[in-house]
């Protein structure tokens, strides 16, 4: 297990500051990072090393907390503590801010693009989740303001194939939303975590959702449609979600981020104990009660809290991570045979 996750390189991405989040573009060729220094940096590979191709520093007045690429790879959204979300358009190596989305009352904590590319979601410390629609002329319009959470909303993520949105909050719950007759509604609330839920990740099929929390556990939730074979109760025509696995005892501090590799199904976590861990589902485990095993654990992955882990969407086993120490690291994950 010691050799399963190997460090490839380390970069001081945001000097004298925290590096908060990373996002790979859909082609897997560029990595966007953002930080407490109010900038977004774009990194590209040149041979064996990663170089900074662009710095987007004029967009925000405060920390940039998350970045997200559009499914087409031509746009980048950045969510900031200055209560705005900037949309940047890529033009070769240059990025131009084409729109600034306003409306949240305070810090925007997350932004995510729907797989269709037509919808964007943002969430904030003001407890709300906003859904925006973008048309062919790059005009953004708010289609819904959802006030379902009772506390700070930390993260939003879209389902890989359906127009289903998930959000994680300081109120210890995960909520799911979908469109119903021209308006967005909260269609499910997942309870179980005993503290703030920091991040979410759908599995490649979209049937399962993993959440990570300040309660130091990872929970895996599975969707059950009405009329399912397992006899899981559903209300009316709504799908229901049940917690089918809880990973506890592995993390000694808050788990800040979780990433589910769309190529291999491996689950990586970013923890406040400075470590990165990787889990894999045990082959042959019951889909209704899956079990996961720890296949990699790097205890001193960074010198401070690890804030984000991100799997490259095209290259198997390539993982990027970033930390409060301002650094960005690249890792190669190679599980040993026979796990």
């Amino acid at each position, binding site marked *: 297990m010691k050799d399963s996750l190997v460090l490839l390189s380390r970069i001081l991405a945001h000097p004298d500051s925290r590096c908060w989040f990373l996002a790979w573009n859909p082609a897997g060729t560029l990595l966007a990072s953002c930080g407490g220094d109010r900038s977004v940096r774009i990194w590209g590979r040149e041979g064996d090393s990663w170089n900074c191709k662009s710095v987007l520093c004029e967009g925000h007045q405060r920390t940039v907390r998350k970045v997200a690429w559009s499914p087409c790879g031509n746009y980048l959204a950045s969510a900031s503590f200055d209560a705005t979300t900037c949309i940047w358009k890529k033009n070769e190596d240059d990025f131009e801010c084409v729109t600034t989305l*306003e*409306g949240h009352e305070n810090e925007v904590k997350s932004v995510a693009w729907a797989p269709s590319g037509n919808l964007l979601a943002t969430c904030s410390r003001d407890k*709300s989740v906003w859904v925006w629609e973008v048309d062919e002329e790059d005009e953004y319009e*708010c289609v*819904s*303001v959802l*006030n379902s959470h009772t506390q700070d909303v930390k993260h939003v993520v879209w389902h890989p194939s359906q127009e289903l949105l998930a959000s994680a909050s300081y109120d210890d719950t995960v909520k799911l939303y979908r469109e119903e007759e021209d308006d967005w509604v909260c269609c499910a609330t997942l309870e179980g975590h005993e503290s703030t839920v920091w991040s979410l990740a759908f599995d490649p099929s979209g049937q399962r959702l993993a959440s990570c929390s300040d309660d130091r556990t990872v929970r895996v939730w599975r969707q059950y449609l009405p009329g399912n074979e397992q006899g899981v109760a559903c209300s009316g025509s709504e799908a229901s979600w049940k917690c089918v696995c809880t990973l506890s005892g592995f993390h000694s501090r808050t788990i800040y981020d979780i990433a589910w590799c769309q190529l291999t199904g491996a689950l990586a976590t970013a923890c406040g104990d400075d470590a990165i861990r990787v889990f894999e589902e045990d082959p042959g485990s019951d889909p209704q009660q899956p079990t996961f095993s720890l296949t990699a654990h790097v205890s001193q992955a960074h010198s401070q809290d690890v804030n984000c882990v991100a799997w490259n969407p095209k290259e198997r086993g390539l993982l990027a991570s970033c930390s409060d120490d301002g650094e960005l690291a690249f890792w190669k994950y190679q599980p040993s045979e026979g796990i």
Partner: protein
Amino acid sequence: MAGEQDMFDAVVMADERFHGEGYREGYEEGSSLGMIEGRQHGTLHGAKVGSEIGCYRGFALAWRGLLHGCATERDSKKMKVLEALIGMIQKFPYDDPTYDRLHEDLDRIRGKFKQFCSLLNVQPDFKISTEGSGLSF
């Protein structure tokens, strides 16, 4: 002999008796004070909710007048959201504080109001303090 025992009984049990009486008196007084305080709190809170929705209603009706007759597709989208907001406000049960979806509906109204302001590109920056100027919710 029996008389003496009653006398001691009264003395020995006095502490407990006074405790009990004191507790009952306190409980009753506390209950009625609580009712009064609760009523005041309810009145205040109800007034706040009423004034918040009243503000949204006035804002919405004013804009309905302003947008009336506008023909662009953008404007018809705004009208749709506006009509949805007005509809929610009209359906809100002002006379039933025990309505079980009170907070949910209130949150939906707030969300629709925020969405409408976003479409208008208007910042809802109202501030009301106890001095009575502006509006803040």
